[in-house]
């Protein structure tokens, strides 16, 4: 009985402590945020907000087993809080995950749990934010990734050639061999923190020149993960000195063979930096719910042939011809949907490998630029466009 009471109390505490708003508040603090981890006291100041992450279903990958496991993937939720001071901004992310999955150095079929946060290099035009899936041509993003990982030994480039041989092939034994193995182990990196710049999935490039100073941690606490990221408000890649910044969160579940595009993600989510003013237009765009008529929009989508190339609803047949849209309402803003309808080539969903599906050409390369196979629907009535956008915003999986 005591246990039950405890559970009830905990549940109600969470319910009151987490705001159900779609805007994350970054609380201004005086504390040092240079290298904060998830178990630091400073997070007591944070206001937690619940966000929903939807399974990435725009692109389908070729791992048969993973596809089977994730066929009917539901949305998940996470809590997110933010703090900032004069120079840094820090985030904490908490999500439930019943299985702790980390990669190990001796197993080839394991994938790590982890999270990533994405920032837009340029958010000055809310109507043309970078594509949510790691940016798009001409609209770069910076992504910070943190995964729990076993020691990864990357010998290349460190000049430690002598330790790149099999211990059985050395003439060492006994204590010398133990020391050799110890040295090899010490050369491994236990921290799988990576930062990338990207203009689309396939362009993702790790920042390795030392220009990135972010700091991310992750730990399994109770029945879930807690991860943190602290980064400068302004660096070579983004300037976050604004009243509102768009942030996107991705979470990987290694237990479901999650990696790369097999992930859960939020749409661009507004983070309001407490005490700063402005960015009203961006805030409005990030939180906009189209005023169109979704029922009419569904009809219009049918009449205009959308279903010929796109999988729209979960029960529709999968379609390789165009990006899958069954979760598009979960991660696209109304402005993005409008743009994609009217000017499909503005953002051609990256990640799609034309070489892999040569009989379904989503796009053609013209002068090195991707030109979408989809015609622009700029001739539609404004009301039709609005209805379709409203309909698309309803397309998303329910929360598990």
């Amino acid at each position, binding site marked *: 009985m005591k246990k039950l009471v405890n559970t009830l109390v905990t549940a109600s505490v969470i319910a009151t402590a987490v705001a159900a708003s779609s805007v994350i508040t970054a609380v201004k603090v005086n504390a040092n945020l240079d290298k904060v981890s998830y178990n630091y006291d400073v997070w007591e100041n944070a206001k937690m907000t619940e966000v929903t992450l939807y399974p990435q279903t725009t692109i389908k990958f070729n791992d048969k087993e993973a596809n089977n496991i994730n066929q009917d993937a539901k949305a998940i939720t996470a809590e997110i809080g933010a703090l900032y001071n004069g120079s840094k901004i820090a985030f904490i992310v908490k999500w439930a995950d019943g299985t702790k999955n980390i990669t190990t*150095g001796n197993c080839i079929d394991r994938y790590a749990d982890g999270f990533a946060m994405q920032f837009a290099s340029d958010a000055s035009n809310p109507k043309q934010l970078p594509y949510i899936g790691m940016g798009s041509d001409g609209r770069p993003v910076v992504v910070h990734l943190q995964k729990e*990982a076993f020691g990864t030994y990357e010998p290349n480039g460190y000049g430690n050639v002598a330790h790149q041989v099999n211990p059985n092939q050395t003439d060492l034994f006994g204590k010398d061999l133990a020391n050799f193995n110890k040295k090899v182990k010490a050369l491994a990196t236990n921290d799988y923190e990576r930062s990338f710049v990207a203009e689309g999935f396939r362009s993702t490039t790790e920042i390795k020149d030392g220009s990135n100073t972010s700091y991310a941690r992750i730990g399994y606490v109770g029945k879930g993960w807690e991860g943190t990221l602290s980064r400068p408000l302004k660096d070579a890649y983004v300037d976050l000195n604004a009243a509102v910044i768009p942030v996107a969160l991705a979470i990987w579940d290694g237990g479901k063979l999650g990696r790369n595009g097999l992930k859960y993600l939020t749409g661009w989510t507004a983070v309001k930096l407490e005490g700063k003013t402005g960015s009203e237009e961006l805030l409005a765009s990030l939180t906009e719910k189209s005023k169109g008529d979704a029922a009419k929009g569904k009809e219009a989508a049918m009449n205009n042939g959308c279903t010929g190339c796109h999988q729209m609803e979960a029960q529709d047949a999968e379609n390789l011809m165009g990006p899958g849209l069954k979760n598009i309402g979960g991660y696209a803003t109304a402005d993005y949907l409008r743009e994609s309808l009217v000017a499909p080539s503005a953002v051609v969903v990256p990640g799609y*490998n034309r070489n892999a599906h040569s009989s379904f050409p989503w796009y053609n390369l013209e002068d090195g630029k991707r030109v979408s196979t989809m015609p622009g629907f700029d001739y539609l009535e404004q009301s039709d466009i609005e209805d379709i956008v409203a309909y698309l915003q309803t397309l998303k999986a329910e929360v598990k």
Partner: protein
Amino acid sequence: MSKRQLAMVMDLNKCIGCQTCTVACKTQWTNRNGREYMYWNNVETYPGTGYPKNWMELGGGFDAAGDLQPGVIPNLEADYGVPWDYNYDALQGGASFEPNVEPTWGPNWDEDEGAGAFPQDNYFFYLPRICNHCTNPGCLSACPRDAIFKREQDGVVLVDLDRCQGYRYCIAGCPYKKIYFNPKISKSEKCILCFPRVEQGLPPACAQQCVGRIRFVGFLDDEESQVYKLVHKYKVALGLRSDYGTQPNVYYVPPTESPVKFDADGKIIPDSGRLPIEELEKLFGPEVHGAIKTLKDEMKKRKETGESELMDILIAYQHSDMFRLDNNYYQQVARENGQNPLAPVDTRYAAGKYTKAGHEMNFFHGGHGHTAGGHH
């Protein structure tokens, strides 16, 4: 498609399954740093489960329409096998002889088993396999990071370890399962066709060490090369499972000879063959009939007239008859890329389509004007 394509031809009539190639590759590349379980080169018994287990049934490759097919990533314990060692050192102390991990599976678990009933009609042959350095690689198409590329100068398919993030879609995409995941560095690795050796005038380790002299290496656009003659001129060398649609660049001369069958009384059945042609058709496609016919015709011609260029090539009197590595071409490529081309360490096989006079001399033959790759 790359500008030129380096290719290998393996003559299955001559493979004795000695695994020298396997060991040459292993000691050169895969005995360390998380690659221990990998065999970039393996020799499997056909019919058999192969390596990894049942690789032909694991998906990947392309369908007739040209679309990449989903595939399965094999399991380390069940499908590849964890390499084990024995406690030799402990034996002196009186310990019993034990493996350090329980062997569950490994390459050649079913070596020499083959098919059919012994002794009447049992049969098998050896199938050495490396990466096919495909013209349309399944691994490359599957990679969502553009981490796999095909070298422009010779079509060798490589993983850019800087871009690779260890997603492993390439393994699902390769129908031959010849790209592997290295858990120690969390990246994919594969056969590199020994490109650092090839650029230095040395054939790939597996080919150089082949005691049966089954492996020819050269450029497919070099009409003087052995591979060109076997693949294009005589059409006796065929790609393995070309139906996967990846356009493999390792070619096989199908086995033409097999022992006769015995009847119930243990007597020879005249003109019988143990190797069902359907098996060869499955591996090498319908072209295998033409290839076998050409081989038999040329064998006959050789017996009758003493002349046959094809038989001369396949016999490979000199090991140097098997390789044309076009070292001059690689030096030229290096110069074009602003690199400092190193002199070849071995000039025996340096001749090739783009190799001009002056590169013919070599110190192994005392400068007698020996043309590498030519006939003697």
